[in-house]
Structures are given as C-alpha cells and as structure tokens.
C-alpha cells in the first residue's frame, strides 16, 4: 500500500504543478474585472501540492508493506476492466447497440458459461429493450454504427 500511496501522491503533485502552470499562463492576479481566470485554480493547485506532500510524508513514515492488489485478485479485476474497455472501444466503430449485444454475448459465454440459447436470447433482448427505451421512448439518441445506418437510423 505504501508504494501505491506514494505513487498516487506523486501523480497528484504532478497534476497540481500542471494546474499551477496553466493558471500562471492565464494570470492569477487582479484583472480589469476582478480576479483573473487563473486565480482560483492556482490556489487549488498550491493547496493540493501541500496536502499531497504531507500525505507522501505520512506514507514514508508508515511501514505498510501489504501489496496494493493481491496477485490472485488481479485476474478478476481485469476480467471486468478489459471487456469493458473493449466494449467502449467497439462502441466507437459499430455503435452502442451492436457493441452491447456482442459485449453481453461474449461476457455471458466466456465468463458465465451460459448456454448458447440463453446467450443469444438475453444479449439480443437487452439491445432491443435499450433501443426502445432510450431511442424511441425517451428520445435520447445513442451512438450508432453502420448497421443502424443501413436500417435507416
């Protein structure tokens, strides 16, 4: 945990420096109409760096050597994160509805080991229900791909 705590603090300090750098660029002083745009973020950055240095100092003093993630726990986390990332990526190319169908189907088949029949029924139903509820009922347009376009949406 100590390494993870230190890494996070260092990343946040870097983020704070980025905020300060950008605030200095747009001005942190007094403009013609009050405080300039960078005034508020500048002080946020300063406070953040100060607090993170203190957190890092506390972490160094503490001898907590438990790992951030246990080795056997990495696999289940990645089993959620990687398919989810693939789903978001594929939404870019083939639209949300087709991506949802494929995501549901592959997840049910490879992780849940459900029968092909239930895989097909559930994944297709979920996409259709999503389509009817959001696209038709609530009129919220979702990202669409070539299939929807060829069907006239």
């Amino acid at each position, binding site marked *: 945990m100590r390494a993870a705590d230190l890494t996070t603090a260092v990343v946040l300090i870097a983020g704070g420096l980025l905020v300060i750098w950008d605030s200095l660029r747009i001005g942190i002083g007094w403009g013609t109409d009050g405080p300039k745009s960078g005034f508020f973020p500048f002080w946020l950055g300063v406070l953040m760096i100060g607090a993170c240095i203190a957190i890092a100092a506390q972490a160094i003093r503490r001898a907590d050597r438990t790992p951030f993630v246990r080795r056997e726990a990495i696999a*289940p986390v990645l089993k959620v994160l990687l398919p989810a990332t693939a789903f978001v990526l594929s939404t870019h190319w083939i639209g949300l509805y087709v991506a949802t169908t494929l995501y549901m189907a592959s997840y049910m088949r490879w992780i849940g080991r459900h029968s092909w029949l239930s895989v097909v029924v559930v994944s297709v139903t979920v996409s259709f229900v999503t389509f009817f509820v959001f696209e038709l009922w609530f009129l919220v347009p979702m990202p669409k791909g070539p299939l929807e376009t060829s069907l006239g949406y």
Partner: protein
Amino acid sequence: MGIENLLLGFQVALQPHNLMLAVIGVALGTIIGVLPGLGGANGVAILLPLTFSMPPTSAIILLTSLYWGALFGGAITSILFNIPGEPWSVATTFDGFPMARNGQGGQALTAAFTSSFVGALFAVVLITLFAPLLAEVALKFGPPEFFAIQLLTFSSFVGLGGGSALKSLVSMLIGFVLAAVGLDIVTGTLRMTFGITDLMKGFDFIVAVIGLFGIGEILLTMEEGLSFKGASAKMSPRIVWDTWRVLPRYWRTFLRSCFIGFWMGFKPGGATPASFMSYSFAKRFSKHPESFGQGDIEGVVAPETAAHAAGGASILPMITLGIPGSPTAAVMLGGLIIWGLQPGPMLFKEKPEFVWGLIASMYTGNVIGVIMVLAFVPAFAAILRVPFAILTPLIVSVCAVGAYSVNGRMIDIWYMLVFGVIGYVFKKLDYPLAPLVLALVLGDLAENALRQSLIMSQGSLLIFLERPISGVITAVALFFFALPVITPWWRRLRGLPTPAVSPRET
C-alpha cells in the same frame, strides 16, 4: 390566508386528471431514478417538450411528480446496487448497501422511503407556512453568504468526516480542479484544456458519479472475490410495519436532518451537501459512531431525510425568486418561462392557482410516491436474481448509456471508464469519493461566489468575516477545518487516548 390558498391548491391538485398525471409522473420518475445516470434533471428535460400543449398547472404537476419519483428511485439503486442514481443518494449508499448485504434490504428501503417522505413533507409544510418570509431572508443573501455556506459544507467533510482529513481535502481539491476545466464563464478564457477540444466542455458530475461509484464498485467487488450481485431485499407488509415501529426512535435524527435539509435547500446544489452534512452530524452525535458505514439504519435515515427536505425546499427559491435550487428545478424554471409564466414573487399574486396547485401537488405527489415505491419494490428485487455474468455487462452498458445521454458525447463514456479506475484506486487508498463529487457539482458556483465577493471587497478576504451572516458561518467553517489539527492536541492535553482511524465511508 395560508389555509384558504392551500384549499384552492388542493382543488387543483385533486382533480382526477391531475392525480393521474401525478401517478404517471411518479412511475416514470422511479424508473428514471433506478436507471443510473438518467436522473431527475434529464427526465424532466426529456418530458418537457410533451408538456407544451398542457395547462401549466398540469404540466408542473407531471414534472414535479417525476422529480419525486426520481428521488425515491435513486434510493433503490443506492441500497441494492451501491450505485447512487443521483448525487444526493451517494450518502445513502454508505449504510444502505451494507444493510442490504446483511439481508436487511427491505428495512433499508422502507427506512429510506419513509425518511424521504418525512423530509419532503416537512419541506412542503414549511413552504406552505413561511414561503413569503423565507423568500425575503434568501433575498438578503449576497455572494459572500453563498460562499460562506459552501465553505461550511466542505469544512464539515474535512473536520467531521473521519478518516484522513488530508485525503478528504485532496479529494475535494481534485473535484474543484475538474470543475474548473473548460470555459471560464466570467472572462471567457479556456482553462486547463491544453488545446484539446474535448476538454472545452469540462467534466460532468453525472459521468464522474457513474464511473466512480458504478464502475469502481464493480471492480472492487470483483477483487474481493465475490461474484458481483446486488444485495437482496425481501419486502412484505410485515417488514414495512416492523421498520416503521423502529423509526420513531430516531426522531432526533429526523428533526435535525429536516432542518439541515430545508436550510441547505435554499442555495443551488443544496440537496447533495445537505445529505452529506446530515450524515456527518448523525455520525457525530451517535452513541455508536463505529457502526456507521457497517449498515446502521440511522445512516440511511439522516441523508434521505435531509436530501428530500432540500429537494422540496429547492422548489421554493425557484417559484418565489426565480433562482433554481437544483439542476432539476433549473430545467423546470425553463419550462415555466416557456409556458408563459414569469417566475418571481408576483407569481403568488397573479397565478395563485398555479403556485398553490403546485404546492398542494407536492403533498399528493409524495403520498402517491411512497405508496407506489413500497408496493413495487418486489418488482425491483426480482432484478437481483439475475446471474452476475448477465448483471455485470448489463450494468456497465447501462452506465455507458447513462454517461452518453448526459451530453451525447462519446468522450463521456471514456471518462466514465477512467473515473471507474480512479474510483477503484481511491477507494483502496481510503481517499473519500464524496467530497470530489460534491466539489465537482458546486465548483463553478463556489468560484463565482468567491470572485464576486472579492470584487465587492476589492480583493480583501476579510469580507467573509465582516458581514454578520457570512461572518458567523465562516467562523464555524474555519473551526471545522481546524478540528483535525485541534483534536489530537486537545486529547494530548487532556491525557485521552488517540482513537483509531474510523472505517472508510465510501
């Protein structure tokens, strides 16, 4: 005077046509509240075009009922799935979800609905009695007072939140920084966009909430080796009745939360800080604060009561002053103008049947709401029997749909994923997530209040202490900020032992 007006209002609200609209509104609202990311504001915005052909009173009854429904529905996902449907349901997850995990889902839901009802009812009664007077008080609020209130909200996290005060502070600062990204409305300058077009519109708190709490929680549960499943809730008249018999014991919490909620409901974004503040206070005053976060029914009562008292109160500045107290109220305000009504104090004189019809419908809408949600919880509980291999991708894709529907931008789905990973890491390292979300919601408002105050004082921070109302609030806020520093010193002085760090709340 008040009674006569209210009777006039009930004549409007109890018309069969308007009652039916209230039922439809509550039902739709509950569905919207249950779907993460599709909150009250979106629901009202989507329905708004359908109301243009209705009489304004019927339209506002439909929209406010949808709002109540969404408020009730948000509690269902918070408790059963640990996914807050709205930012003010975040605090409900702290104890609601552990309760559901311990097999007390039915009790948690009953407590949440009842508290919501009590909070909302309290707010409506106060609105009925004190509307003109309270509007006058709020009129005297200038930017320094608004900023002082916000300072108080955040100080209560750092000072009373438990856990690491430094990490609470950092979490809050991250939220403010994220809120500052994009166009600065005051000067028109682009901030922290680094030439990237997608960053110009900044970060939406709904997307952040979906990622941090929705996706982050799935990752965390997976790591703990549990197959992801929502907690189960049995709902029967027996459970409802037994819970109702326990609840009067918490009358102090109810009362305190009602007042916190109503007071905070004045100012924009009030429901979320109200729920957190009420939770902190309930924990602070509890005889057994260590049970908070483990499934204490009081931890459900406090935030739900306050959030709904604030939700009700947020309607008040909208109709009396034309200042929306919540994002949803802001959308409704847009509707008012489209229907040809002028929001403001004159509305009470010119359109009494509209104002009092709306106030009366807040009574009927909440009664309909609490009956409907209590009756239909078994239907929602049925969702929980779905295997996790279906539920996981389903929740991820519903979250994606929710994130996308906020602005219709693909980048928001990516943000959701990134916030999910951040949520996972932060939860493991005991960074509280709630201050981050709250700062993201209130960031622009807090900054504007600060800048306007500084313009008023020509750059002197003393303005917050010199004005009487803001002076008192700021002093209390500074005391809370100093608490984590004072407490260990005070304990050493008195020779008391240092307590262990309290369990994480998020």
